[in-house]
């Protein structure tokens, strides 16, 4: 399968982050969709077969945790997809919960795009175990 046929969903409430990450991964040859609200991400996952979902933990304020909802939704509707959860407010308990819900990777921000790209490439090149 070529990269261009692999689809990634990026979920973040920061438009500038969505713009930059979309541009980066599109240049790498991925098909990229973006969502900035929980319901938008769910609507996209419900109607699209993604290979990977990259979600921020919090989409509204520093206390919210929509990213955990997204993991659960992806596991139910798109079980083959890999999931990366990113956060600037991570704690061991949140990380534990994310992995319990089915996240493949938990990352702390800030994370250089080149490093994220390496992880994305690894995750999208193999089947989910």
């Amino acid at each position: 399968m070529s990269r261009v046929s692999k689809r990634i969903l990026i979920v973040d409430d920061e438009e500038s982050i969505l713009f930059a990450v979309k541009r980066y991964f599109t240049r790498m040859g991925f098909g990229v969709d973006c969502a900035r609200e929980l319901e938008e991400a769910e609507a996209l996952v419900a109607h699209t077969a993604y290979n990977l979902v990259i979600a921020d933990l919090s989409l509204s304020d520093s206390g919210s945790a929509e990213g955990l909802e997204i993991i659960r939704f992806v596991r139910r509707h798109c079980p083959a997809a890999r999931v990366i959860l990113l956060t600037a407010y991570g704690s061991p308990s949140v990380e534990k919960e994310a992995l319990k819900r089915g996240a493949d990777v938990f990352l702390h921000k800030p994370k250089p795009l080149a490093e994220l790209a390496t992880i994305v490439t690894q995750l999208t090149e193999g089947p989910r175990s």
Partner: protein
Amino acid sequence: MTERATERRTILDELRLPGALRIEFQPIFRLDGDRRELYALEALTRGPRGTSMERPDVLFEYARRKGEETQIDLLCIAAALSEAGTLPGSPRISINIHASTLGSTPRFTSTLLANARSFGIGADRLMLEILEHRAGWADTTRTTLDELRGEGVLIALDDLGVGASNYHMLIDCRPDHLKIDRYIVAGCSRDRYRMAVLQSIVTLGRASNATPIAEGVEEVEDLDTLRAIGIDCVQGWLYARSMPASDLAFTPFLSPRQPPAAEITL
């Protein structure tokens, strides 16, 4: 993620901005021998270009998850009527609507007809395509459908044969038209199961006085099969893609706009 986020416009806010919802029209034709007559134009909604809402499946799924399906439905209807008002001729306009919107909107019929009239569209030029499962059905839905029928609005049951558009909805809606989903239509010429389903729909239509309309007709072989089975109302890329009103005005499908009788002088 940021404090600023709470002050930002949501996607719903953006969808409510004037011009955010774009409308395209796809012709539905009635075939009679070698003749092809425009029967209706289905209004199809698209969200803002370059966003995830450009996809109608995502747009309506999002609206449903936000609990705003009715509001988005009503916005789509308003946008469709406004665009239809710019078309030359007097084509019938077919508009999609969820059953839940019909049942939950007070004075739906009078509001719809008044809105349509303001764009020069009479009730006899309207067709409503009913979407959704019976869970969205309310006691008032049947009343609203009866009112609409009484005013001359045609009722179509959309996506027949897939998902939740089923016999239950057929009995409740009592439609004038059965819109057959493309899943059943595409490839029917080489699939005896699809052919069998189509034949049963034709029989169902004859018995219930509802004319079938085949959606997603893209191949000549499928068209021949549909016609042999007795389906003469068709919609699909074989004849025409969906297009904005401005493009449709340059197609041969529409006759030039006729002035109202009161303006004609001899």
